C-alpha cells in the first residue's frame, strides 16, 4: 500500500539539519530546534509502527515509478521498529549532548551532523533498493566521519583516518557486489531480486555475491574477524558521540544483514547460515575476551558492542520464527542498553574527568543514582531478569535448543557470564573501592541523569512487560521469513 508517511523519517532530519546549519552561532536555539525535530520524527516513527501493524507493509515509489523501475521505500515491521528505536535513543543522546558538549563542538556543526547521521540511518532502514542502500550508508558514514573528528585531537584525527579508510574499502566492495548483482540479474530492486536471484543458484554466482555482501556488512556491523577497527575508533570522540555510534551504527550493518540474508542469500544456499552461526559464536567470544583485558570504561563497552552483535547474528543464523524474533528483540534491547551504558560512562567522565578504571573509584558515594542506573543497565546487558536482555536471550537460547544448535547456545551462555563479570569489574572499580573524589563538573547533571534514566526505564519496561513488544517482533520475524509475500506487495504497490 502506498503511503507518504514512509519518507518523513528521512525528510524531517534533513530539513532540521539544513535549518540547524543556519542557526550555527546560537547553541540554545539550535538545541531547541534539534530536539523538536527529533520528537517530531519520533512521533512519525511510532505512527509508522502502528500503521504497519494495522495495514501491513507500506511502500512509497518515488515519482510514482512502479517498483522495479523507480526507487522505492519499503516499510515492514522490522524497518518501522528500527526507525522508532533509532529516534528514541537519538533523542536521549541529543538531550545528554546538549548539556555535556562544550561550545567548541556545538558551534562546529555538531547539531547538523547529528541530524544528517539520523537521516542516513533512517534512509538505510527504509530503502528497498540495493544501490540506494549504498547511498544511505555513505550519508551516515560521511556524517559519522565529521562527528568522530569533531574536536580535532591528534588521537581522533588518526583514528578517524583509519575508520574512514576501512569504510571506504568496504564501500568499494559494496559497489563491486552491486555491479555483480546488476550484471547477473539486471535489477537492483530488492523486491525484484527476491524473484530473480534464485535463478543464479546453479551458476555459482550466487555464492560469490553472498560472500561479498557478507564481508561488506561484516565490516560495517563489526563481525568476526572484521571488528578490529571498532574499539579504537569509538574511543576517540566525546563519549556521548561514541554512545550514539555504539548504539546505532553497527546495527545498521546488522539490519542490512537481516534484510539481505532473509530476502535472497539464505533461501537456496547451503553455506550462508552455517557460516553465520560460526561467525556469531566467534564474534561473541572474542568480543567479550577483548573486553576482559581492558581497563578503561569506554574500551570495555566498545568490546561489548562486538560481543553483543554475535547474539543478533545468532538469531539470524538459527533462522526460525522464534530465533529471528529474538534477534530483533535483541537489537532493540541492545540499542537502548548500550547507549545508556555509554551515557553513564560519559556522565562519570564529566564528573570525575577520566574513564580509566584504575583512576576512578567511589563514584557510588558521589552519585548514587548514576550507580543504580549503571547497575540496571549492566545487568540488562548480561541478560539478568527482569530486564530486557533476559527476554531477548531467553528467546534466542530457546530457539537455539529447539534447532539443536547446542554449540552456539553453550558459547552464548559462557559469554553471558563473562559479560556479567566484566560489568561487575566496572562497578567494583568505578563505583566502589575508595572514598569518592571531588566532582569536577556537576553542571547539567540532572539532565544527563534524566536521559540515562529514560533509556534504562525503557529497558525495564521491555523486560517486565516483554509481552508489549513481543507481538511486534513476531510480526517482523514472520514478514522476514516470507520474502515472496514482501516482494509481491512491493512490486504491486500503486497509487489508487
Amino acid at each position, binding site marked *: 500500500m502506498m503511503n507518504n508517511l514512509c519518507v518523513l523519517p528521512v525528510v524531517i532530519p534533513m530539513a532540521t539539519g539544513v535549518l540547524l546549519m543556519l542557526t550555527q552561532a546560537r547553541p540554545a536555539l539550535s538545541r531547541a530546534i534539534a530536539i523538536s525535530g527529533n520528537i517530531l520524527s519520533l512521533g512519525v516513527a511510532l505512527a509508522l509502527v502502528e500503521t504497519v501493524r494495522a495495514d501491513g507493509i507500506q511502500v512509497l515509489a518515488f515519482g510514482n515509478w512502479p517498483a522495479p523501475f523507480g526507487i522505492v521505500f519499503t516499510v515492514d515491521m522490522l524497518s518501522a521498529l528500527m526507525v522508532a528505536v533509532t529516534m528514541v535513543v537519538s533523542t536521549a543522546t541529543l538531550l545528554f549532548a546538549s548539556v555535556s558538549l562544550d561550545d567548541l563542538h556545538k558551534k562546529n556543526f555538531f547539531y547538523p551532523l547529528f541530524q544528517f547521521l539520523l537521516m542516513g540511518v533512517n534512509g538505510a532502514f527504509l530503502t528497498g533498493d540495493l544501490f540506494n542502500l549504498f*547511498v544511505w550508508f555513505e550519508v551516515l558514514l560521511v556524517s559519522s566521519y565529521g562527528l568522530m573528528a569533531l574536536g580535532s585531537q591528534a588521537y581522533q*584525527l588518526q583514528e578517524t*583516518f583509519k575508520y*574512514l579508510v576501512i569504510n*571506504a574499502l568496504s564501500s568499494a566492495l559494496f559497489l563491486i557486489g552491486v555491479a555483480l548483482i*546488476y550484471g547477473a540479474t539486471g535489477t537492483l530492486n530488492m523486491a525484484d531480486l527476491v524473484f530473480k536471484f534464485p535463478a543464479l543458484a546453479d551458476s555459482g554466482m550466487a555464492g560469490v555475491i553472498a560472500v561479498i555482501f557478507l564481508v561488506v556488512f561484516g565490516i560495517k556491523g563489526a563481525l568476526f574477524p572484521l571488528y578490529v577497527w571498532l574499539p579504537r575508533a569509538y*574511543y576517540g570522540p566525546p563519549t556521548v558521540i561514541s554512545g550514539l555510534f555504539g548504539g546505532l551504527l553497527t546495527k545498521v550493518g546488522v539490519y542490512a544483514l537481516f534484510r539481505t540474508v532473509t530476502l535472497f542469500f539464505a533461501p537456496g544456499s547451503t553455506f550462508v547460515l552455517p557460516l553465520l552461526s560460526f561467525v556469531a559464536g566467534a564474534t561473541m567470544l572474542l568480543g567479550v575476551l577483548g573486553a576482559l583485558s581492558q581497563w578503561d570504561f569506554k*574500551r570495555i563497552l566498545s568490546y561489548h558492542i562486538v560481543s553483543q552483535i554475535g547474539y543478533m547474528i545468532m538469531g539470524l543464523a538459527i533462522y526460525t520464527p522464534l530465533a529471528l524474533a529474538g534477534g530483533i528483540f535483541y537489537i532493540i534491547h541492545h540499542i537502548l542498553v548500550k547507549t545508556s551504558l555509554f551515557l553513564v560512562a560519559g556522565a562519570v567522565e564529566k564528573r570525575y574527568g577520566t574513564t580509566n578504571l584504575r583512576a576512578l573509584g567511589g563514584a557510588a558515594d558521589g552519585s548514587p543514582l548514576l550507580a543504580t542506573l549503571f547497575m540496571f543497565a549492566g545487568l540488562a546487558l548480561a541478560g539478568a531478569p527482569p530486564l530486557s536482555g533476559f527476554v531477548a536471550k531467553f528467546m534466542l537460547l530457546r530457539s537455539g535448543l529447539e534447532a539443536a544448535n547446542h554449540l552456539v547456545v553453550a558459547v552464548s551462555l559462557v559469554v553471558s557470564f563473562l559479560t556479567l563479570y566484566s560489568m561487575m569489574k566496572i562497578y567494583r572499580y568505578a563505583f566502589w573501592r575508595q572514598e569518592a573524589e571531588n566532582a569536577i563538573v556537576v553542571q547539567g547533571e540532572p539532565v544527563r541523569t534524566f536521559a540515562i534514566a529514560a533509556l534504562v526505564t525503557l529497558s525495564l519496561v521491555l523486560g517486565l512487560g516483554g509481552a508489549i513488544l513481543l507481538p511486534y517482533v513476531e510480526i517482523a520475524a514472520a514478514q522476514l521469513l516470507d520474502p515472496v509475500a514482501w516482494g509481491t506487495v512491493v512490486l504491486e504497490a500503486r497509487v489508487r
Partner: protein
Amino acid sequence: MHLAVLTVVAVFITCGVYLLLDRTLLRVVIGLGLLSNGVNLALLASGGLGPGAAPILGHGSAAIVDPLPQALILTAIVIGFGVTALLLTLAFASYQSQLSDDLEDLHGRLDDE
C-alpha cells in the same frame, strides 16, 4: 572488449590495494582513488559493453545501451569525490598535528594497554 575492460579493472584494483597497504598517508589516499575508479569501471561493465544507440525515446529502434550503470557510476563518482576530499583534509590535519605522514608514527599515547 569485456576482457580488456576487466583487465583494466583488475590492474586498478590491484594497484589500489597495494597502495592502501602502504604506511604513507598520501599513498593510502591515492590507493583509494585508484580502487574506486576500478570499481566504477566494473560498474560500467555490469551493464554489458558494446555498440548501441543512445537511450532516447523515439530515436532508433535498434539495440540501445543500458543507461542505469552510467547513473550509478555518476553517483559513485560524486560520493567518491566527497570522501576523497574529506580524507585529504584529515590526512593534512593529522600531518599538521603530528608532523609526520607515516602511519607508524601515529600510534599516539592513548594506545591500547
